[in-house]
């Protein structure tokens, strides 16, 4: 099936209660499949007037205690950030599936990895989010389910950062009932509409995102930041291949990591000591794991369909290390294994 179909099935399997959405390519088929399935499984859907509304309605859905989600891309992701900033401030477990397309502006409806910055750090805040970057349909399924669990467990807005290729390509996928695999869905609890007469049997829930004093905001933020830092080791995920003796470490995320891995296989077949590292979570970023691997390598190559968005994260995470970092940076372009191998040789990285 296509990746968009995978996401719809994953949301269904995760027990998502309601989706709010607004059409944008290449995300549309997530809504198409969801709206076909939703009535059969008693799930909700609302097509809103724009992504601002879709984002805020998702906020409303989680406030009401439901596993609510939305999906978007590109310019829609920009509009979505307003509501996600509110979710970040108020610790609301929203789930957003992003299918990256070319940018900036309308650009292409096809594909890119240019929404990394926006998804990890969008909004007027500190980027207290969880961002998963799957690379296959099996992972798209798994991490969409996981996104709901991480969101509700840790209470930070959670994103599945896919892309147009993953949305549109067809490849085999195994879908499953999470229970059957021993995955227990994190329970949801409402933040408004609680039982009991407010003011008499309990205090009313008075939820706000506005504060009066610098100090007051600082305290709220630092509490959230410390919690984020505390949970980061539990959340952070990565994938490696042939890293133990790697002289060249190729770093990529999402669909591009497939090409990076294939390039490493191809280089290894010809006797070159290449290895591969993939951050599965872009936020939090697995810098601690990457550091010793990078320190051992002679060269690092960051490969991405963007102009340095991942590379910047890598360099920030490895600050102080002397291993040179090169980028094969192709904003908005798909990347094949052959290109990477060719680049490695052309730049004499190995």
């Amino acid at each position, binding site marked *: 099936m296509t990746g968009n179909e995978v996401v719809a099935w994953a949301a269904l399997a995760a027990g998502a*209660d*309601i989706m*709010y959405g607004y059409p944008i390519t290449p995300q549309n088929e997530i809504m198409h499949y969801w709206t076909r399935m939703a009535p059969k499984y008693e799930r*909700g859907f*609302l097509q*809103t*007037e*724009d992504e*601002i*509304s879709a*984002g*805020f*309605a*998702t*906020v*409303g*859905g989680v*406030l*009401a*205690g*439901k596993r*609510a989600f939305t999906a978007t891309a590109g310019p829609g992701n920009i509009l979505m950030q*307003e*509501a996600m900033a*509110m979710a970040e401030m108020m610790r609301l477990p929203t789930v957003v599936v992003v299918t990256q397309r070319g940018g900036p502006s309308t650009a292409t409806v096809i594909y890119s990895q240019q929404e990394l910055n926006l998804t990890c750090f969008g909004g007027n805040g500190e980027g207290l989010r969880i961002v998963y970057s799957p690379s296959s349909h099996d992972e798209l399924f798994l991490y969409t389910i996981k996104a709901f669990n991480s969101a509700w467990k840790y209470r930070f807005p959670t994103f599945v950062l896919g892309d147009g290729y993953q949305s549109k390509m067809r490849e085999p996928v195994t879908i499953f009932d999470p229970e059957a695999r021993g995955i227990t869905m994190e329970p949801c609890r*409402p*933040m*408004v*509409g*609680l039982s*009991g*007469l*407010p*003011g*008499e049997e309990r205090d*009313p*829930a*008075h*939820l*706000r*995102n*506005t504060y009066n004093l610098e100090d007051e905001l600082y305290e709220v933020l630092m509490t959230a930041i410390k919690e984020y830092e505390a949970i980061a080791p539990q959340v952070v995920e990565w994938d490696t291949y042939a890293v133990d003796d790697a002289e060249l470490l190729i770093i990529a995320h999402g669909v591009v990591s497939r090409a990076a891995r294939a390039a490493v296989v191809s280089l290894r077949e010809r006797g070159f000591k290449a290895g591969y590292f993939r951050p599965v979570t872009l936020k939090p970023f697995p810098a601690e794991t990457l550091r010793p691997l990078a320190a051992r390598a002679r060269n690092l190559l960051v490969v991405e369909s963007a102009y340095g968005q991942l590379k910047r994260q890598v360099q920030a995470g490895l600050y102080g290390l002397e291993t040179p970092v090169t980028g094969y940076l192709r904003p908005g372009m798909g990347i094949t294994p052959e290109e990477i191998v060719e680049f490695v040789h052309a730049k004499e990285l190995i």
Partner: protein
Amino acid sequence: MAIAAQPQMPRVWRAETKPHKFCPGCGHGIVLKALGEAIDALDIQERTIFGCDIGCSLLSWDFFNLDTVQTHHGRTTPVLVGIKRARPELVVVSYMGDGGAYAIGAQHLVSSASRNDLVTIIVVNNTVYAMTGGQMAPTTLPGQKTETTPYGRDARLTGRPILGPELVAAIAPPGAYVARGSIANIVQLKNFIQKGLQNQLEGRGIAFIEALSSCPTNWHTNAAATWGFVEKEMTAYFPVGELRTPEEGPSGRFQEVPARGFQS
């Protein structure tokens, strides 16, 4: 001990956060009193969710013994629509100023009206952006001085005031309830709001109530001039009354059509 007669607070008001922090002469307290009385009358405190916007309306974030969420500027209706769609048994009240309703959040109002969302929207119209210091609002009257129209609003350059209830009445499908009340008639205003809540309880459609209100702080008016502006100047432009009852169809062009689709 002699106690001065205190006006009765609605039951749903939260005593711990009173007296409230609105300016002297502000209309918010009166609108929130009308809302409180309407909630009391319908006995829906336990299942009502109150949402407030940015602007002076946010000062009501801890006003009631109601589960409350303070949202972003113009975004209160989408949040509450999101809640309502997820939990239809709840009663949701979306409370905001004219800037949130008619400028930055206008698309949400238009779309909620078209969808006949089961939400009760209350818009406090005081003709200015008050929290930010008295700039021109979508409802500023032609000729009215504000901080961004220091020589008076020139309708040729900045348009005419938006008629919110008229807009909603024109486009909302049958089942909608639309009215404009005024703080100058709290009994009528409470009645309108109560009907608006009732409309949601009965699942008939959207309820939209605009309340003409006052902002002496930004109008720089004394009590007499404040009331004069609300009762004479504002009502001349914004007529008070019910614009739509649930039995009526939209005032704009509208034709009831059966569901239809493409021949397959």
